[in-house]
Structures are given as structure tokens and as C-alpha cells.
């Protein structure tokens, strides 16, 4: 298994506040790696620093793409993509423009075909095709999340970071979101998933980290983490039997 992302003794500081302290983490090719933890645990700071949006201390390497850790543009050239927690859509612009700009970095690449790229995204999210000429800031919460994900997928990412894709969405849309993440995984996209929805996240993950107060509290295979009594207590709200029975429960948040 090749590691796509390796961080060691990784810290993020905002002035005197230490949001992420001494975190070490690995994400492997073809896997879904998930980071769960309560609000304010430093999950978003972690993933933003990995993308290069905020400064960090410690070591960060993308072994498959040397040089990618140099700048955001270098990461994007290596097809590393982030769907941020805040979505960061271009509100006054149309859905279509938002998607086209998702492939901005590819526009000069040989063999790049905007139309076929768009068609693929519209096949994945038929809803966006219906709303292609609508302004992004008039979309519903679920549609916005689809657009943010669709925009990131325009890049055809090899490593995709998703920050709370289910945040603030209705249960049915959350289920849809996780189906799409599963489908991306089946298509071979490696994913770093940041979630508060621990139950659903652990179910589709291979490797999991529990982040608390900026530090890694537990780490291991997703199955082992899901069976850990401390995790069951704190994040899954009781027995895993419910999840194993395959019922679509999307609670488990604190």
C-alpha cells in the first residue's frame, strides 16, 4: 500500500492558540481515511493546513507527488483537491461557471475536454444539470454541497479531501452524499474524509483517526476504531449493532 499523504509532528497555530498539536497521520492510495472528532477538535484546521491554505509547523509530504507540498497550485497540479467546510462557492456566478472554474487548472492540458468533463459531473449530479444557469447562492444547502463536490471533481482528483460533507444537510441528502463518496472510492479515488457523523464515516472508511483537542486520540483500522468502546461511547451513541443491521441511522453526533 503506498502512502499518498504523510504528516508528522504537524501543528497549526493561530497566534497563541494551538489548534492542531503534534499530529501524525497517513493516508493510503485507494483508501478512505477518516478523521472524526467533536466540534473544535481542529479537524478543519488540519485539512486546511494540508491543502496549504493556512501555515503549519512540522513535516508534510505527498510521496507520490514530490513538490506538491510547495504551494496550493502545486497540489492542484498533482490533482489534490479539497471541498472545504465553508463550500466557498462563487455565489453570484452560475452553477455552470462554478463547475467550469473547477477545471481552471486543467484548461491548458492536452486532451482536456470541458464538455465531456461537465457531462460526467452532470451524470453524477442530475440536479446540477437542471440548475446549470442558476446563481450558486440561490441553491439549497444540499445542492450547494453537490456543487462544491462537483467543482472539486471537475479536476478529476487523485486525492480528494472532504471537510464535513454532511454538515447541515437533511438525512436523505446525507445518505446520498455517502453513496457518492462510496462510488468515488470504488472508482479508485483516494479520500481523506473529515466528519462529525462518525457512524456513516467509519462504515465507508479503511483507516480512521479520532482527533480531540487538536491531538490524535486514537488511530487504527476503521473497523477497530468503530469497535473501540471509547468511540462507541463518545461518538456512536451506543452499540454498533444498529449500524451493522444496515439501517440508515444518521445520528451519532454529539
Amino acid at each position, binding site marked *: 500500500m503506498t502512502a499518498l499523504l504523510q504528516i508528522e509532528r504537524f501543528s497549526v497555530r493561530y497566534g497563541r492558540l494551538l489548534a492542531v498539536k503534534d499530529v501524525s497521520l497517513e493516508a493510503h492510495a485507494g483508501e478512505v481515511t477518516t478523521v472524526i472528532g467533536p466540534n473544535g477538535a481542529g479537524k478543519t484546521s488540519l485539512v486546511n493546513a494540508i491543502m496549504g491554505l493556512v501555515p503549519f509547523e512540522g513535516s508534510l509530504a505527498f510521496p507520490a507527488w514530490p513538490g506538491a507540498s*510547495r504551494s496550493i497550485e502545486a497540489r492542484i497540479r498533482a490533482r489534490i483537491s479539497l471541498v472545504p467546510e465553508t463550500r466557498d462557492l462563487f455565489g453570484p456566478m452560475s452553477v455552470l461557471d462554478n463547475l467550469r472554474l473547477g477545471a481552471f487548472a486543467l484548461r491548458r492540458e492536452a486532451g482536456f475536454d470541458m464538455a465531456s468533463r461537465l457531462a460526467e459531473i452532470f451524470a453524477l449530479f442530475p440536479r446540477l444539470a437542471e440548475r446549470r444557469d442558476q446563481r450558486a447562492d440561490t441553491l439549497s444547502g444540499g445542492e450547494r454541497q453537490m456543487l462544491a463536490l462537483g467543482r472539486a471533481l471537475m479536476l478529476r482528483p487523485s486525492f480528494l479531501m472532504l471537510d464535513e460533507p454532511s454538515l447541515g444537510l437533511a438525512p436523505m441528502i446525507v445518505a446520498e452524499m455517502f453513496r457518492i463518496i462510496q462510488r468515488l472510492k470504488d472508482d479508485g479515488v483516494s479520500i481523506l474524509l473529515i466528519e462529525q457523523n462518525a457512524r456513516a464515516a467509519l462504515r465507508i472508511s479503511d483507516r480512521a483517526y479520532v482527533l480531540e483537542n487538536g491531538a490524535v486520540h486514537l488511530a487504527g483500522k476503521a473497523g477497530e476504531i468503530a469497535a473501540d468502546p471509547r468511540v462507541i461511547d463518545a461518538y456512536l451513541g451506543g452499540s454498533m449493532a444498529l449500524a451493522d443491521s444496515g439501517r440508515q441511522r444518521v445520528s451519532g453526533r454529539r
Partner: protein
Amino acid sequence: MNTDVAMILLQDGLVSGAIYILLATALVLVFSVTRVIFVPQGDLVAFTALTLSAFEAGERPGTIWIVTFAAGIAVSLEMVEAARWRDRARALQSLLRFGLVPAVVILAALFLVPKTAPLVWKMAVSAGLITCLGPLIYRIVFQPMAAASPLVLLIAAIAAHLGLNSIGLHAFGPEGVRTEGFSGAPLALFGMIVTPQAAGVLASSVVVVAALYLFFRFPLRGRALLAAAHNRRGAEIVGISTVAAGRTVFVLAGLAAAISGLLIGPTTTLYYDSGFILGLKGFVGAIVGGMAVYPLAAAGALLVGTVESFASFWASAYRDVVVFLLIIPVLFWRSVSVLAPEDGLE
């Protein structure tokens, strides 16, 4: 006052308004993408006229040395940064961008503009020199502090203006100049006499604004600049470099300032320090649009031009006072209206 006088004043007002539209548009553009209030814009306007006038006199304009030094500083800054990252591709790119491009324009200005050269060529080289200054100012002054608050950026912009002012005095001397403009026989239009200069200014302004509109409407590069203005983080994560976006708008702002300078030079005597007041008038126009809405900014610029022209008829000593008084009702109106919240102002 009779109708004839009023029509002449209106025509004058619209012509200067057309120039202020260019300035206001560039100010809004720069502000929305970089949150910089581009105070030195006016200096670039004045420098353009001073450059053109030096070419007309068959001299080498001081702009050549300003661009040379600025390019030197920018290239050194870039080299230091590229060396720190050991990034050879970036070093090469910066040499082309901040070294080769200004060098070509400078060499053209040094050797290819004899006194007998046609006016259009002199204008083009003057505009080229000034346009080079736009991104150089961005690289040296604003890019290193791009993440600072709008207030800090404003302070830096004022510092840059004061610096350029002194450099301008040194490079061009204290004399005022007037340049040549559109010439030819006056035209009669709906019973009004329109000078070729007025027609030329209006036409150029319309062409530039239309070109800007098309650039932002259609190509993905233009959409990307708008995207950087709407959401900086969103732009960064799709690979739109905010540095490149800033550089591009400063190229556009430099070009807009240069064109304004070429248009205004024949009708107003410009000194090395005339730019500030001109920039301020564009700024009043931009404020009408809340630094965010282009059509309103353009309307504001036309209003400024018209008010200025009528004010100079009635109370010519106070015309600038009258123009700047405009800003008070405008600010009052903007503070009570809910129209277009200033989302760029954070």
C-alpha cells in the same frame, strides 16, 4: 445661462466623465480582487501624459528609468523567493515576466521612438511603459502584504502614491505639459459642435469599457478573476492563484490609467503631482457604486464629470470643492439604502 452654454458644459462634463469612468472602473476592479484602494492610479495617469510629452519633444522620458529600477527590484524579490523554494521554473518565469517584458518596452522606448515617429506609436510606447508599472507596483508593494487588512493596504497605497510623487518630480521636473490629441475638423451632431477630441475620448472610453466587459463575461480567464473577487479561498482551491489574479488586475489598471492619461492630456495641463486629484475624482465615482457595482460606479463617474463642468462655470475656483462635496450625500444615501451590501469591505 442659455441652452447653448448648458449643452457645451454638458458635453464637457460627459467627456471628463468618460475619463473618470475608466478610472472608477479600474479602482473597483482592483479593489474587488485585491482589496487595495489603488491611490497611485492617478500618478500613473499624470506620468502617461508626461511620458508622451517627452517623446513629442524628442527626449527620453524619465519613465524609462522608473520602469528599469522597478523591474530590477521586482526581479530581485522574485529571485530571492525562487531561491528559497529552489524552484527553477518559477525563477525562469519571473525573469520573463518582470525582466524580459519590461526590457522589450524599455528598449523600444530608448531606440525606436524618434521625434518624427507617428503620434500613435508614441502613444502606444507611453501606454506600454505605464502598463508595465502596474504589475511592478503590485509585485513590490502589495503582493508581499496581500493578506493584510484593507486599512493596512490603503496605508501602503498612500505610501506608494507619495513615493511615486517624489519619483515623478525627480524624473519629470516641475513643469506642466499638454499633449497632442485627436485632431481634425469639428463635427456637427444634432446641431451641436463636437470636437474630434471629445468624440475620440467618448469612443475610446466606450471601447475600453466594452472590452473589459467582454473579457469578464466570456473567457475562463476573465471568469477566474471575477471568481477571485467573489471568494478568495474558493478561487485558491480551484487553482486560481490570487497572486496571478492581483497581477492581472494591476496590468488592467495600469492600462486603464495609461489610456486615461492619453485622453486627458490634450485638455488639461498635467504636472507630476496632478494625478492625485484625478484619481480622487475616479474614487468618488467608484464610491457611488459602493466599490462593488460597475454600472453605478460609471454613473457616479459621469455625475462627477458633469458636476465638475457646471461648477467650473459658476464657481471655477471652487470646482474641486463642489465635486468632493458630492461624496457627502452619496455616503449618506449609501448608509441608509440597503442596496448591494458592501460585501467586499469585510
